[in-house]
């Protein structure tokens, strides 16, 4: 094996020794493959065909009612996602960030949380929001431009969406340190924090620093990376030579790869990771291996950078379909049940649509509201001058 020095300081091209020192094309390809295939270490409890399989470390007892609940969550949040996508196409939203394909990763992780646990999302975590008791209408203002999310992050224990890639990982590490400092770590009744980010974010310095901080302070933090294979147009191979979950080893904590399209496996692994954190054995990295079945956002055009064959392949691994098949096979649900969920999802879509089109624009005072907790006389003077100017127009507006 050649040394990195030989790669970075190559001999002139004519020198045979230097040529031999470079990795071969096969070595490079093998390295890349390792990042984009689910490997033998992938934890799976429900196959894409709806077959229940056992895992020696991460099995889970699930009742018919619980599995129906997970199915309902996923169907409803997918319907929300499709409706919001349509609302963008109709001009009712400025942009939408689709979660299509990542329902199992999010519902599995979200349903592993307890009310006292804290969650830090990126901006695609509509499924996590759902599990934190946040009505989907509260997400719309971010994308319509009327607000920046209206939920109370303290009450729901769900941080605001964070758009700068990776920032929230450090914020989550600090919050988890606080849980530890508060004495809330050490047994099964303790609290934990979970932080969501994507494969692209793993290249950000803040994510690496978050790994370092959580590790050296033994913070009760689950790093939940949804590897959906694409950071807008860049494949995971552009972010890493190594499967992402293996990065944890370098920071000194466990990393595990779970089938992110398998809601049962995601639930089981996340529950385990949270429990380890509660006991004081955090942090832990989970890589949920999944796929972004739609565009990065409604402004994106995936046809420019990926093959439709890939999407077709992943459709066979759909996270919802396998649960439906399993429910039928187990006779845990019948067609009346599925119709009932379908009707509920349609009603939710109607509610979302009506709410969205009736959302009022915020008043101009909103520009100046809550910039500071204790006020700022310079800003207040600017506000008063502007509002006075605005009120000079007929009808009080432009």
């Amino acid at each position, binding site marked *: 094996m050649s040394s990195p020095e030989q790669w970075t300081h190559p001999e002139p091209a004519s020198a045979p020794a230097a040529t031999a020192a470079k990795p071969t094309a096969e070595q490079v390809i093998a390295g890349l493959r390792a990042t984009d295939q689910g490997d033998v270490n992938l934890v799976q409890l429900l196959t894409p065909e709806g077959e229940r399989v056992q895992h020696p470390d991460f099995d889970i007892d699930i009742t018919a009612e619980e599995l129906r609940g997970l199915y309902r969550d996923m169907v409803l949040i997918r319907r929300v996602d499709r409706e919001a996508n349509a609302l963008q196409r109709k001009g009712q939203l400025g942009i939408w960030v689709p979660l299509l394909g990542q329902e199992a990763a999010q519902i599995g992780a979200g349903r592993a949380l307890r009310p006292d646990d804290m969650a830090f999302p990126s901006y695609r975590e509509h499924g996590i929001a759902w599990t934190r008791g946040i009505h989907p209408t509260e997400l719309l203002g971010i994308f319509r431009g009327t607000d920046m999310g209206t939920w109370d992050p303290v009450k729901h224990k769900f*941080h605001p969406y964070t758009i700068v890639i990776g920032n929230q990982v450090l914020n989550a590490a600090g919050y988890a340190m606080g849980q530890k400092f508060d004495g809330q770590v050490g047994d099964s009744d303790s609290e934990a924090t979970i932080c969501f980010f994507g494969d692209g974010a793993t290249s950000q310095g803040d994510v690496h620093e978050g790994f370092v901080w959580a590790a050296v302070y033994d913070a009760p933090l689950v790093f939940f990376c949804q590897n959906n294979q694409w950071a807008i147009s860049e494949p995971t191979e552009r972010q890493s030579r190594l499967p992402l979950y293996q990065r944890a080893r370098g920071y000194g904590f466990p990393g595990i790869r779970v089938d992110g399209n398998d809601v049962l496996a995601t639930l089981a692994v996340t529950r385990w990771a949270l429990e380890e954190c509660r006991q004081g054995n955090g942090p832990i990295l989970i890589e949920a291996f999944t796929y972004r079945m739609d565009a990065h956002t409604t402004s994106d055009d995936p046809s420019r950078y990926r093959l439709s064959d890939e999407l077709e392949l992943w459709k066979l691994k759909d996270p919802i379909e396998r649960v439906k098949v399993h429910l039928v096979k187990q006779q845990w649900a019948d067609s009346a049940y599925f119709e009932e969920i379908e009707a509920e999802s349609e009603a939710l879509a109607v509610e979302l649509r009506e709410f969205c089109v009736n959302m009022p624009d915020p008043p101009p005072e909103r520009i100046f509201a809550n*910039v500071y907790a204790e006020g700022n006389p310079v800003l207040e003077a600017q506000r008063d001058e502007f509002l006075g100017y605005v009120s000079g127009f007929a009808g009080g507006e432009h």
Partner: protein
Amino acid sequence: MAAPTLNRADSGSGESDVQTLTISKALNMGLRAAMEANPKVLMMGEDIGKLGGVFRITDGLQKDFGEQRVLDTPLAESGIIGTAVGLAIRGYRPVCEIQFDGFIFPGFDQIVSQVAKLHYRTQGRNKLPMVIRVPFGGGIGAVEHHSESPESYFAHTAGLKVVSCSNPTDAYWMIQQAIDCDDPVLFFEPKRRYYEKAPVDTTKAPGPLFASRVLRSAPSAGAATLVGYGPMIRVCLDAANAAAEDGTELEVIDLRTLSPLDLGPVYESVRRTGRLVVVSEAPSESSITSEIAAKVQQECFYSLQAPVLRVTGFDTPYPPSKLEEEFLPDLDRVLHAVDRSLAW
């Protein structure tokens, strides 16, 4: 520390306790008082525990308050700021030390994107009561990145408050008031003045945090107004003493707060003197001094007898330290500007 007196100048009661302290020791005592007053106050930074910080500002605090309240952090500034955000959301009041001015930039993203905006984003549901302490400015013969004056970046960012102390009394009280503030505060400490001494009354805050202060009055006509902050206040006061020997009265105002600016006393002064010289060692372009010049011409247009003049560092990177005496505004450059203003 009597916490309720922090924001009231007149509420001290009982005996005054006046000690002669350096700025460095006054900050140390102020931090200690804040930690004693509120168990949620944490110190975070590089080398601030056992070592007490490279300037010893946190000397002895870890020994007395433990490693969980005085954190020797991993060596990454974004990590310091980013985890402090999480701790603040959790209910703590983190005080972050950035070891040197030029090392704040790895944390710039967290400061601008999260610290400054979370309160706005959540419409007040997340408060960020955190302080970021920054030893700043030149004059210590240091290598690159150890002598910078980055305060304008932060004053330009909505959601942050920015202050700078210039003397031991302010060091002692302003740091406690900043920690007590529910908004995030960038606290710029004049590192070249850390070891200057003055008497400090530790029983009574001299005034609120976000207020400028007239340090030397010049009631008569034929005078000029000098405005500065942080390490330049010593230069301004020396210049005023020298000018007085030549029969020229200079009014000296310490800004103390850079965001929000408290320019009322400056306007009042300029309306009397008609002349203003603003002093800062930061580069002049798009800076605190630009802002003051703009505001004063707007508010004092008919009072001005001369254009607002500025004495600043140059619009270059901070130079090799053998040149810093030329770079930094000093008594002669300030008096030269005063002469130009008076001769206009």
